């Protein structure tokens, strides 16, 4: 499609939406084994496929869903699961705050809908875009909607067919997310050549990962790297 064909706002919406969906492709692929594994694990724990799909659709947070499934029992330890989810997803406080300055083209209702979909993958891809061009709602929902639907689909399929991929590490699939995030990190770093937040975050994340259970290391590393950048302001000014 050439740009001269673009007439009205609906064309621009479609083009931006499709561009977002296209640029989400690597993550749409790398999420497949995780969705299948989560669905299979949930069935294994006694959740029905409907319950598994509802969890994916309502919560839409992979790592928290894995932990919740791991904790699942009868009776359901509801407070432990909700508290763990809150801890795991505390990093979204930082992520939403960082995205705010790039959401000037969003109406308020659009922004609050968009934030429902603030999974790590969508957030990172949106920021990569925002480093180059203003972030439009159409582009953001082009990332979010296919990713959301595929998460629903693959967890559901995993719930029905069980452990189709018994050893994802054999195919390197466990490395897929790290690879995607590395590439996105590299792209962001090209626009913002700062090593301090990266170095501090890596050191603190590794330390906390060794010492504390769960995914505390993400919040700890993220917060430490952020704080380091904030504290540098005085000496630079």
């Amino acid at each position, binding site marked *: 499609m050439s740009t001269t064909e673009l007439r009205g706002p609906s064309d621009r919406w479609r083009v931006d939406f499709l561009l977002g969906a296209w640029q989400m*492709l690597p993550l749409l692929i790398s999420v497949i084994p995780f969705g299948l594994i989560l669905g299979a694990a949930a069935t294994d724990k006694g*959740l*029905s*496929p409907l*319950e598994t799909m*509802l*969890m994916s659709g309502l919560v839409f*947070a992979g790592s*928290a869903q894995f932990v*919740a499934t791991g904790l699942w029992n009868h009776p*359901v330890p*509801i407070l432990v*699961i*909700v508290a763990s*989810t*809150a801890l795991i*997803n505390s990093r*979204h*406080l*930082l*992520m*939403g*705050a*960082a*995205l*705010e*300055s790039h959401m000037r083209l969003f109406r308020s209702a659009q922004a*609050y809908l968009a*934030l*429902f979909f*603030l999974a*790590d993958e969508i957030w*990172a891809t949106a920021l990569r875009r925002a480093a180059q061009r203003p972030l439009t709602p159409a582009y953001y929902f082009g990332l979010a909607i296919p990713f959301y639907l595929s998460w629903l689909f693959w967890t559901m399929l995993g719930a029905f067919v069980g452990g189709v991929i018994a050893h994802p590490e054999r195919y*390197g*699939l466990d*490395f897929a*997310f*790290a*690879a995607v*995030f*590395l*590439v996105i990190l*590299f792209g*962001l770093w090209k626009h913002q050549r*700062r090593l301090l*937040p*990266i170095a501090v*975050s*890596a050191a603190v*994340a590794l330390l906390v*990962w060794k010492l504390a259970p769960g995914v505390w*290391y993400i919040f700890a*590393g*993220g917060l*430490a*790297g*952020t704080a380091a*950048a*904030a504290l540098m302001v005085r000496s630079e*000014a």
Partner: protein
Amino acid sequence: MRLDPVALLTFLGMLAVTYGARIGGYWFVQRFTVGPRLKAGLEAVPLAVLTAIIAPTVLASGPAESLAALATLLLAWRLPVLAAVLGGILTVVLLRAVLA
């Protein structure tokens, strides 16, 4: 198909804390004035959080993962995202076979 009310209640609790975190930081920054220090911190959040997510895999899983991460970065320098990711996955599979 079975839907246990306690399961639904659990999911709604998970939804509440997750959505709360996703809108909370946004809401705060929009509502309150962001000084230069907080601004510099927020600009560093993407680098810091992404680094923290991948740090254990890249730095502490073993030589195969660390070398594959290096290969992924070198590929990302010139190639599109999907090619770099597939190259990184291929590298980790090969290295695990060789180093095992």
